[in-house]
């Protein structure tokens, strides 16, 4: 029989453990799994990570007395390393959630792991339709976009504005096809005709001369395309150099004329139409504050990737706040992420529980010459674009 004294001691110990002021000070950990050091997405990884950290700091950096720690792990642009780092973050560092990847090559590895280990994963960029479609998972949420979500409104818009024929060109890989298919569907349904499609191999050399010559031959009213990074700069410049600009309207998902590419494109970008979930020119106080802060810190215009990073941070923070900082129950964390709405840099944002993809405004805009700079004029905004379930059964 335990003496009263010992029973009291045990009870006191149990009570102190349950109340656990020591536990409440343990930081909330977010694990970033991004390609920080190798491959073509390094600048994107840094923009996303820096902006996410900025958002957390702006919001106060702590919830219910628990500091929020952002851990970074480098995937070196390899999917098996991405998987290894994710495992390390979850099983050794005991993060509460993962954020990643940038590109589609690492998506499979992270998606699988998050699903199997039941760890919340937020995708801050990779837009593969299936991640919130056929291969959706209750543990994987996306704060960036799906390929289809970005492009599907462009087709009808262009038909409405008089462009009845279009040629398509994009790299021959999943994202390229998904974007072209998304545009094609809307365009043809609205009465437009696709006169030519070309899918250059997803290689590093971006000489579009041969393809542009073909486009010239078929004489479409417009060209719709998807490229990002150095190939995007090359395409925009070459489009002008080969004389297509005077006769054919160039339109694209907005990465073609991203702030990351505008300096290189110069005047060749003027007149190009873009459709995207973010434009630096968005005239809202949240965006203006974000751009001001980012530009002061990094001395360049914040890109759509930085905006996605920032909004991801904001969403995470809002969810944590709604939970009072309690992160032990991961399913509750996911539910919280479903329940919050934030005013991000892009406008009102929330995550759709039916697909786990974000619901956001989509902007149609044009690059315009402004003095000696090129900037954007927003032509249209389609509010609260939401993906249909398209194969996801959540």
């Amino acid at each position: 029989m335990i003496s009263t004294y010992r029973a009291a001691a045990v009870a006191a110990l149990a009570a102190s453990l349950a109340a656990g002021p020591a536990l409440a000070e343990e930081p909330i950990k977010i694990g970033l799994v991004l390609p920080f050091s190798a491959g073509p997405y390094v600048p994107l990884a840094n923009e996303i990570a820096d902006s996410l950290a900025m958002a957390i700091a702006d919001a106060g950096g702590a919830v219910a007395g628990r500091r929020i720690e952002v851990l970074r792990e480098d995937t070196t642009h390899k999917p098996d390393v991405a998987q290894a780092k994710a495992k390390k973050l979850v099983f050794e560092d005991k993060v509460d959630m993962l954020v990643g990847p940038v590109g589609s090559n690492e998506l499979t590895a992270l998606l699988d792991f998050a699903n199997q280990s039941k760890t919340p994963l937020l995708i801050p960029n990779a837009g593969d339709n299936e991640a919130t479609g056929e291969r959706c998972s209750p543990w994987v949420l996306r704060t960036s976009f799906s390929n289809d979500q970005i492009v599907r409104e462009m087709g009808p818009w262009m038909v409405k504005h008089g462009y009845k024929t279009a040629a398509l060109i994009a790299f021959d890989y999943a994202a390229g096809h998904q974007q072209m298919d998304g545009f094609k569907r809307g365009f043809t349904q609205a009465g437009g005709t696709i006169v030519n499609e070309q899918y250059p191999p997803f290689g590093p050399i971006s000489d579009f001369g041969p393809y542009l010559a073909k486009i010239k031959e078929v004489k479409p009213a417009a060209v719709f395309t998807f490229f990002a990074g150095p190939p995007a700069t090359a395409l925009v410049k070459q489009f002008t150099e080969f004389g297509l600009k005077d006769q054919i309207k160039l339109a694209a998902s907005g990465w073609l004329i991203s702030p990351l590419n505008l300096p290189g494109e110069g005047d060749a970008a003027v007149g190009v139409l873009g459709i995207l979930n973010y434009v630096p020119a968005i005239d809202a106080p949240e965006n203006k504050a974000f751009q001001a802060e980012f530009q002061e810190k990094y001395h360049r215009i914040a890109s759509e990737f930085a905006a996605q990073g920032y909004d991801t941070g904001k969403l995470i923070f809002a969810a944590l706040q709604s939970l009072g900082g309690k992160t032990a129950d991961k399913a509750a964390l996911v539910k919280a992420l479903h329940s919050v709405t934030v005013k991000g840099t892009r406008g009102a944002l929330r995550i759709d529980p039916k697909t786990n993809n974000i619901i956001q405004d989509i902007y149609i805009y044009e690059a315009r010459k402004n003095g000696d700079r090129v900037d954007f004029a927003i032509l249209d905004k389609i509010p609260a674009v939401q993906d249909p379930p398209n194969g996801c059964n959540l």
Partner: protein
Amino acid sequence: MDSGFLLLQLLNGLQFAMLLFLLAVGLSVVLGMMNFINLAHGTLYMVGAFVGFAAAERAGSFWAALVAGPPAAAALGAVFYAGLLRRMQQAGAMKQVLVTFGLIFVGIDTVRLIWGDYEQTLPAPSVLAGSVHILGQVYPAYRLFVIALGLMLALILHLGLERTRLGAAVRAGVDDRVMAASLGLDIERAFFAVFCLGCALAGLAGVVAAPVLEIYPGMDMAILIPTLIVVVVGGPGRLAGAFLGALLIGMAETFGAVLVPDFSGFMIYAVMALALLLRPQGLLPARHSS
């Protein structure tokens, strides 16, 4: 396929071929002379582009890039040759190749350290920035410049090989190194000069390609394999081989892209494999046996 389309494609193919030629000629002659593949050749191309870009930014002119890029690449090549390669003459071909493989890693991070990860732009000079009308087609003036430059350099190099003493030494060295050395020709010096020239040409290719293909860390990897293919197909060791190989690959890539798009992804590798199997010494083999 109408004639306008054909003309455009021919010009595109020719322009791409000239870029490949500038890159391949240095690699090819070095391979023929020293039986050595410099896998870091792409790194020299990248360094030429970045250094050229930095010079152009400072001076506000594209031509500064042309002046700064090639010597920078040549200097780097010279340091590599004198410091590393010469010491490894006894070590065997494979070791030399492996060292250059390691240099690729060093090169890419060095560039990233100095210039960061973002892409840089080297705009074409304003006098060449516009488009020209040729036979009813609109074609970028700058690409015509690339074609002209490539052809001119091919001619200069040819004359250099045929008419100068150094050229004669190089040709002798490629044909039969041992014999040439025994005849008292200063083969070592000839090889060093040619190696540096090859590096300079790679750097020049980097500057010339920049307005078309953009500047970014990783551009070295992008160009390495097409260059290797040109060298193999054309036949290592001969200027004419590099030229012919570049024409073949440049045209194949350009026309293949639009005529057989599904196949174009691995077409150049298939071309290289076929060339190696059917004519391993290349279209225009060097006369000696390797």
